[in-house]
């Protein structure tokens, strides 16, 4: 396993589920590469294909075409299974067994005997020590989620797949979770995250892929996605100046502007600088007394991309 190998390489992946009259496509011709040590987000609305991709990587669903490799090993191969840890979206109960027993069994499945030190460390980090002897089925949703995270990390995977880990969990767990995951990432673990909370992806992930109906709409650095797709709102306070009427200025980057007294509100695409805004509206710098900007966020970019995707498919 070379250090230069991709952590995850997906090529022309097609996933379909049987239904009356044939296969329902969940993922269509998807290709992406994730480098070792990346913190990567897979974003998309419900039905975008995020969980299908995660399931295909781990061997939980079969795919019809394409190729997935994990650090150079085929997906779901014995080697790949050692390298991947999965925190699934759905909570699991585990019948009659306690938290500690489940973690011991899971360690054993990976061929690790006497893993109590690692188990204790994970229980400590995920604040589960008080619940170690409780049956998993008796725990709350948030605690069950922590158990799932501990299970995924018992064998020290090189790539951690987090499928909606913060769905329906409280702020405390989110803080514990993200601090821990950030620490794992700093230590070299590759993280692949699917989430509905776009501010989390924006805060944590260096790169993101946006999916809709199984198709890749965008794949770029999170900052670049925001810059290229999100909107920026600029508030200008002017002295003795009126901007030209709206009909007189045409530029694709200038989405909207209006003047109310001395105050001008301008909406531009995320990549447009303040200087360019002033140039577009022919505003001399000496007439500007105040500038305030509202930066677009990933949610903004995400919604715009989805709208574009819908328009394209219509």
């Amino acid at each position, binding site marked *: 396993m070379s250090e230069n190998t991709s952590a995850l390489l997906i090529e022309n992946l097609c996933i379909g589920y049987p239904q009356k009259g044939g296969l329902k496509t969940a993922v269509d011709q998807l290709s992406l590469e994730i480098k070792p040590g990346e913190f990567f987000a897979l974003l998309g609305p419900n039905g975008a294909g995020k969980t299908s991709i995660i399931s295909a990587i781990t061997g*939980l669903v079969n795919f019809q075409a394409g190729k997935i490799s994990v650090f150079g090993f085929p997906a779901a191969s014995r080697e790949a299974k050692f390298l991947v840890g999965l925190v699934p979206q*759905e909570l699991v109960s585990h019948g009659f067994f306690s938290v500690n027993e489940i973690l011991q069994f899971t360690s*054993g499945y990976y061929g*690790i005997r006497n893993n109590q030190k*690692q188990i204790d460390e994970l229980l400590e980090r995920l604040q589960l020590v008080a619940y170690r002897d409780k049956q998993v*089925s008796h725990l709350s949703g948030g605690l069950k989620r922590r158990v799932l995270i501990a*299970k995924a990390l018992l064998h020290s995977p090189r790539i951690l797949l987090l499928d909606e880990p913060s769905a329906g969990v409280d702020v405390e767990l989110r803080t514990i979770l993200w601090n821990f995951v950030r620490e794992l990432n700093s230590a070299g673990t590759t993280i692949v995250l699917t989430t509905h909370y776009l501010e989390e992806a924006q805060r944590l992930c260096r790169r993101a892929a946006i999916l809709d109906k199984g198709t890749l709409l965008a794949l770029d650095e999170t900052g670049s996605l925001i810059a290229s797709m999100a909107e920026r709102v600029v508030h200008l306070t002017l002295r003795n100046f009126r901007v030209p009427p709206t009909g007189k200025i045409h530029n694709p980057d200038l989405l909207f502007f209006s003047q109310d007294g001395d105050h001008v509100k301008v909406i531009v695409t995320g990549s447009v600088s303040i200087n360019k805004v002033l140039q577009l509206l022919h505003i001399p710098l000496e007439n500007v007394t105040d500038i305030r900007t509202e930066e677009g966020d990933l949610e903004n970019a995400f919604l715009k991309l989805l709208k574009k995707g819908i328009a394209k498919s219509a």
Partner: protein
Amino acid sequence: MLNHPPAVFSNNRWQTEWIGFLTLFHKEVARFVRVAAQTLFSPLINALLYLIVFGLSFSALLKTQQGFTYLEFLIPGLAAMAALNNSLQNSSSSVMVSKFHGDLQDIRLIPLSSTAIAAAYTLASIFRGVIVGMLVLILGEFVFYFKTGNSIQILHPGELFVFLILGGAIFGNLGTWTGFICKTFDQIHAVTNFVVLPLIYLGGVFFSIKIFHPVVQQISAFNPLLYLINGIRWSILGVSDIPIGFCLSLSLVFVAISCVIAWYSVRFGSYQRF
């Protein structure tokens, strides 16, 4: 912990496989021991009712079977039935309950081969089957002693264990298969009611197969239970409807076929939650 290397680099393949197999076996045994009232003692109540109703109450009305009183004839049959039924139920209910809880997917994620997974389920099923079979046999001895003041001598104890193990393997494997192909509890009940129950009643638990209509006898030749029950009865009483060598050979064939079926179901079966 953060710099802990993945387990793949610290263990060799066979060691990892062995530890994984033992862990799954341990978990499967712990599962049925945890609910012993349901899995170990409930079959005893069932057997006791059969012994009271058929063995004690009807015994005087029923003809002797192969030179033994009906109660003597019935006890090995009940022990065999309990062993095989519980072997089947162990793996099938474990897989189904795991599907219900959602943790069966763990088995798909781990680096354990389908062979090791199927073998762990089967071994745990054999274990439960042998325990329940022996408990029913002990119960039968008590009832027989209560009725006659004598005990039943087990003529071939080694062979008894061999047949219990072979039966446990066949029915444990079939349980794994039903667990993986069934998608609801209704489906698993249908398998029990429409497949296992007729096999039990036509397999010689309650009567010698020789009293059945010739057509039923011919159909029963395909019933693996027939050979196992006769093997177990021969091990205890020394009598069988079928030559014992034939029982053993066919049981081994059924073990081989059921192992392939169990492996296939673990490899390609459904792990989906319901």
